[in-house]
């Protein structure tokens, strides 16, 4: 009986891992493979929108450092926030991030994407330079990816820099504005995040 249980667990683990998408650990190839995969998923006509969203969320959960991003976007407030509230914030942030990421990727999924090169800034960060080619509706867009490479075997995305403008920094300043104009009441930020998630 016990053997059977272990066998079932083993089969589950193996089959579950076979669905996990793993990309190359070289930051440049990592971004190329990941974006190709995301675009392919979003343009796959055999999938429903819900299935597409789920697949994108899975890719993001495995390859974006959402926890670090949530801490970064909280700015200095992360040093003083209560533990329980921080946990609630991180849970809400993850849902908010996944929803906004899927929406943003869907907006740009029909565009032609190309990785140009990668520049290692230090042991922890590599910036991968890429571009979305010019189309009739918009000029060429330069996109840089801040890839966290502390674990060289498992790179993680921490920021997207569109034409020199950091999305993480924009998010951080947006959250700071909400907190500043509401006496640093984190509950207001929670309500705004919840409102976005439920819409």
């Amino acid at each position: 009986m016990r053997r059977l249980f272990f066998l079932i667990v083993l089969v589950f683990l193996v089959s579950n891992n076979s669905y996990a998408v793993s990309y190359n650990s070289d930051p440049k190839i990592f971004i190329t493979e990941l974006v190709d995969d995301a675009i392919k998923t979003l343009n796959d006509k055999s999938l429903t929108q819900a299935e597409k969203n789920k697949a994108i969320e899975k890719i993001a959960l495995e390859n974006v450092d959402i926890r670090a991003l949530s801490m970064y976007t909280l700015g200095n407030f992360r040093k003083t926030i209560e533990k329980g509230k921080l946990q609630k914030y991180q849970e809400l942030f993850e849902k908010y991030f996944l929803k906004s990421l899927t929406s943003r990727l869907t907006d740009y999924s029909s565009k032609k994407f190309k990785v140009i090169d990668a520049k290692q800034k230090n042991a922890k960060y590599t910036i991968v330079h890429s571009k979305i080619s010019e189309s009739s509706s918009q000029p060429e867009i330069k996109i840089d990816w801040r890839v966290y490479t502390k674990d060289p075997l498992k790179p993680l995305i921490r920021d997207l820099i569109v034409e020199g403008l950091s999305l993480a920094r924009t998010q951080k300043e947006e959250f700071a504005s909400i907190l500043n104009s509401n006496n640093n009441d984190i509950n207001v930020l929670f309500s705004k995040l919840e409102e976005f998630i439920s819409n």
Partner: protein
Amino acid sequence: MRSKKLHIFVYSILFVALSVNANAQAEKECFEKASRGIFKFNQGFDNAILKPTAKLYNKLPEPVKNGAGNFTSNIATLLSIPNHLLQGEIKSAGHATGSFLINTTVGVLGLANPAGAIGLSSQKEDLGQTLGSYGVGGGCYFVLPILGPTTVRDSIGMFGDNLIDPFARITWHEKEIKSISGSKMDYIGVKATSAVDFRGDNMTNFESLEKNSLDFYAATKSLYLQNRDKKINNSSDSDDDDWGNLDK
């Protein structure tokens, strides 16, 4: 009259230089409530006029759109040249001058961009950027009706631009330079076309940003200030020390 304007301008520059901490981030708001109100008004203006016009503009044949974009960019080069010089960027000033001369002549009044094809590109520069390159901080942030986000430094720069820009002198100030003359309507027409061209190019970007923002006003402010920093430093790197603090 001209001397009076110059006096006001010079005093304004001194005011900015003295009152604004050179290293200060332009994050403080002058009058946030009023700015948020004006921002809402600008959104209404965008929804009612600018966005629909830009949508129609995007339906124009590609050569017409490219021609309009090239034409307004070529005219903007006239303002970039003195600002490159004021920033000591002699090479860039040379490139901008070459670009303007080639595009105006070979490119038929700037409708085509043959200068770009031979590698002569012109980067847009204004007096706000020039002041920024001298170390003048932005000062507080506010929003102007129709014209949008700005800072104390950039709004004074905008006023100064209107005085040093040869195109503005010919059109807005109706001064004749080398037998070339124009009217205020020419100035407004070119600026409006430039705004529509920019809005048309950024249709997806604006929609995506608005849809995914918790506070669209704050997101726009952040992007405006980041963009100005990037232009002043002539750099596309986005560095924030806070990333380094995360692992401590």
